[in-house]
């Protein structure tokens, strides 16, 4: 017996669970296994093929089942639960449509490496392949969007399969695992012995420490660099390597840029932290990446939203890439040193030997870029001189987020949907702690926000949780308001309501000559919608009203709340790297000076009509992007 075995044994006994064989049905085995995996909440929706398991759930009051209003909500809630805690989230659904409705949530979890286990009912074994009622090949459908999946073929293997599923979901590069259980197997009985030995899978051995020669090579590159930059991704917080990251950047004086999911990897108040990179990242951050002589990529995957045009990406830099998934190394960007391993382990290997040295000239250069960005900043304290581009008396989405940051003390867990409000969140809500921003980065799933926020709040009831959603995405899953009410989930919803699919509208403005096709939305009255569910709601139309509204809803300690922020319709997220453009080829907001000059020129042109009108200026971005490939 190994130490692990005794530990598991002990844990099982302490939990009052016997390791003696007992005869249980498949459905009961599912529940027993969930308990032993430490599950306390299951998000799901019942139906024919999963009914035996729902019936068994009545005998396991320790497993709290949350009835969602759509199975998509269940998979997003499980995902939100997982991202808020690092624990495995569990979603349950019936066969056929129940299972297919989980798909978007599973793909979302896959793209962002979120550990969830989905349990689906399947038609009885004998009916599989006959196009039975509510039959669908869900293991086939989810093959490319799960880390692994199982179709259980015998009740005797059920316990082992569920154990493997949790093991695979939570270890290595985490991800979603689906277990499809035919109805007859849920009904059949067998001797249930919970396996106590650790899971061993011959084809699955997550790496831990980095290879020593590669660590040496990385240290050499760090030593030789003058303009290094760390690119910190989701992997930092997933490996709990936050402290190691802070130590590394402090010791070697290396600035840190964050990916969207990397927010929280290091406190954004930390002097070494530059903020977010990429398509809507800070201009100074993107300049720093393009001018760096060394990129140290940690637990990030060089997504196209982060690199822009790969051919010109950080052309003069050497590159170190640390990731737990070997297939990420040299996938999009060829690197000089690739280290495969757990980030915590690898960073400790590096920390042991990294040298202290100043990088003042490099930081000075970044400070110059930052000063230029600050000139263009549109969100300023209410009593400071405002940027002339701020429309008089209009509420800006960006201001709402900044004020929300202020009035929540920066301490909330925020869960966003996808679009402009998501980017403003990333730009204006500074996160200090890991797992405090939950957002769909890779798949960009509209409709993620509300259900994921419900899952996050249920996972961490002691935490203030805000769902920041746009009016478009909110309406994709707003039926989950009922779930929040039924479970009395104290989640605060902020709808950034501009009556447009704002991000799509922004692309249409820049790249499709302002043809706003299918982006204006006729919305319901969100306050009345909330009231229909019994949810207290406030409408905010001016900046002065934000503080009171936020505090009023924060003070409500039970059940969901909602604020409908009616914001400027045609606001733009700046800066923007057009898809496929070079990373430092950004569309910027003009400086106040540029803005005033343009305004004067326009006024002068209007006063002198006899002069031939100057060639209309082609939209800058359309010209940049014209023939380039990009999505």
């Amino acid at each position, binding site marked *: 017996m190994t130490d692990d075995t005794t530990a598991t044994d002990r844990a099982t006994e302490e939990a009052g669970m016997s390791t003696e064989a007992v005869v249980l049905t498949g459905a009961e085995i599912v529940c027993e296994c969930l308990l032993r995996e430490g599950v306390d909440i299951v998000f799901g929706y019942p139906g024919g093929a999963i009914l035996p398991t729902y019936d068994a759930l009545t005998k396991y009051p320790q497993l709290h089942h949350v009835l969602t209003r759509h199975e998509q909500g269940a998979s997003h809630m499980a995902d939100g639960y997982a991202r808020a805690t690092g624990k495995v989230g569990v979603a349950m659904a019936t066969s056929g449509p129940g299972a297919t409705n989980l798909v978007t949530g599973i793909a979302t979890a896959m793209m962002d490496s979120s550990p969830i286990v989905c349990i689906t009912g399947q038609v009885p074994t004998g009916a599989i392949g006959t196009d039975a009622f509510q039959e669908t090949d869900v*293991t*086939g459908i989810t*093959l*490319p969007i799960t*880390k*692994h999946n199982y*179709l259980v*073929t*015998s009740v*005797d*293997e059920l316990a*082992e399969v569920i154990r493997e599923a949790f093991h*695979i979901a939570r270890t290595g590069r985490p991800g979603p695992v689906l277990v499809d259980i035919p109805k007859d197997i849920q009904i059949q009985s067998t001797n249930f012995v919970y396996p106590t030995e650790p899971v*061993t*899978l*011959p*084809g*699955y051995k997550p790496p831990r420490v980095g290879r020593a020669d590669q660590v040496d090579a990385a240290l050499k590159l760090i030593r030789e660099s003058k303009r290094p930059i760390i690119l910190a991704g989701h992997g930092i917080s997933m490996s709990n390597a936050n402290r190691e990251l802070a130590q590394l950047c402090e010791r070697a004086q290396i600035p840190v840029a964050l990916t969207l999911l990397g927010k929280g990897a290091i406190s954004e108040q930390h002097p070494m932290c530059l903020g977010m990179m990429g398509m809507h990242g800070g201009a100074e951050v993107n300049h720093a990446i393009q001018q760096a002589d060394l990129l140290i990529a940690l637990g990030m995957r060089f997504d196209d939203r982060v690199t822009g045009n790969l051919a010109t990406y950080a052309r003069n830099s050497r590159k170190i890439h640390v990731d737990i*998934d*070997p*297939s990420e*190394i*040299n*996938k999009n960007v060829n690197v000089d040193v690739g280290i495969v391993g757990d980030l915590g382990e690898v960073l400790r290997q590096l920390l042991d030997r990294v040298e202290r040295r100043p990088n003042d000239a490099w930081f000075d250069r970044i400070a110059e870029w930052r000063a230029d960005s600050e000139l263009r900043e549109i969100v300023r304290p209410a009593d400071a001189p405002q940027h002339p581009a701020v429309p008089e008396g209009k509420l800006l989405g960006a201001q709402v987020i900044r004020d929300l940051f202020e009035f929540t003390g920066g301490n909330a867990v925020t869960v966003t949907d996808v679009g402009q409000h998501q980017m403003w969140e990333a730009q204006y809500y500074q996160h200090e702690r890991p797992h405090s921003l939950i957002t769909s980065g890779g798949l960009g799933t509209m409709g993620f926000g509300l259900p994921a926020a419900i899952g996050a709040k249920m996972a961490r009831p002691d935490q203030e949780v805000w769902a920041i959603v746009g009016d478009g995405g909110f309406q994709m899953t707003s039926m989950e308001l009922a779930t929040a009410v039924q479970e009395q989930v104290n989640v605060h919803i902020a709808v950034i309501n501009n009556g447009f699919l704002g991000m799509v509208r922004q692309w249409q403005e820049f790249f499709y000559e302002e043809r706003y096709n299918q982006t204006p939305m006729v919305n319901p009255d969100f306050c009345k919608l909330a009231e229909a569910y019994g949810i207290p709601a406030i409408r905010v139309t001016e900046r002065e009203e934000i503080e009171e509204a936020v505090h009023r809803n924060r003070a409500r300690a039970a059940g969901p709340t909602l604020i409908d922020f009616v914001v400027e319709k045609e606001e733009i997220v700046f800066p923007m790297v057009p898809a496929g453009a070079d990373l430092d080829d950004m569309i910027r907001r003009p400086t106040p000076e540029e803005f005033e000059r343009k305004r004067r020129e326009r006024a002068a042109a209007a006063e002198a009509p006899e002069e031939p009108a100057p060639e209309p200026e082609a939209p800058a971005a359309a010209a940049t992007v014209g023939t380039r490939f990009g999505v």
Partner: protein
Amino acid sequence: MAKHILAALVENRPGVLARVSNLFRRRSFNIDSLSVGRTQRENISRMTIVMESDAAEADRLVKNLYKLVDVVHVDHLHSQPSVVRDMALVKVRASSENRREVIQLCDIFRARIIDVGAESLVVEITGEEEKLEHFTELVRPFGIVEMVRTGVIALGRGGHTLKDEGYKPNRTRSARRRNVL
């Protein structure tokens, strides 16, 4: 671009072939041939994958194959001395007048005639792909009625074997899991 021969040991689990072939499709790998069969181990099958690509692409495929839980081991066989074989059954049109000529060709290629009909012969030929291609070119003028190839299979020479020492079959499941490709 070069020919890459990869050998993969996989667990005999439902859907493993679908997982591997889906990987080719999903990540746009262009595969020349794929052959699958059992090994001396009850729960392990072996896949031989041939692809025409650059080294980086082959490396990418290896890494992605390893991500599949059911894949136990993968090896580049082209980078070691190895024996490589493909096999074809070719039904060649051959009347009484030209049958001798076809038989002579078969002799030269050490191909075996395994069926003789009034108008045709079935020839079994094994060897490296080039040999098979050369042979089919030579018999083409007689008329190839139909043919089938197994795809390439390969083994490392001498002491070079695919590592699966760490492999222990899963007790509960191994008994039931056979022939599930």
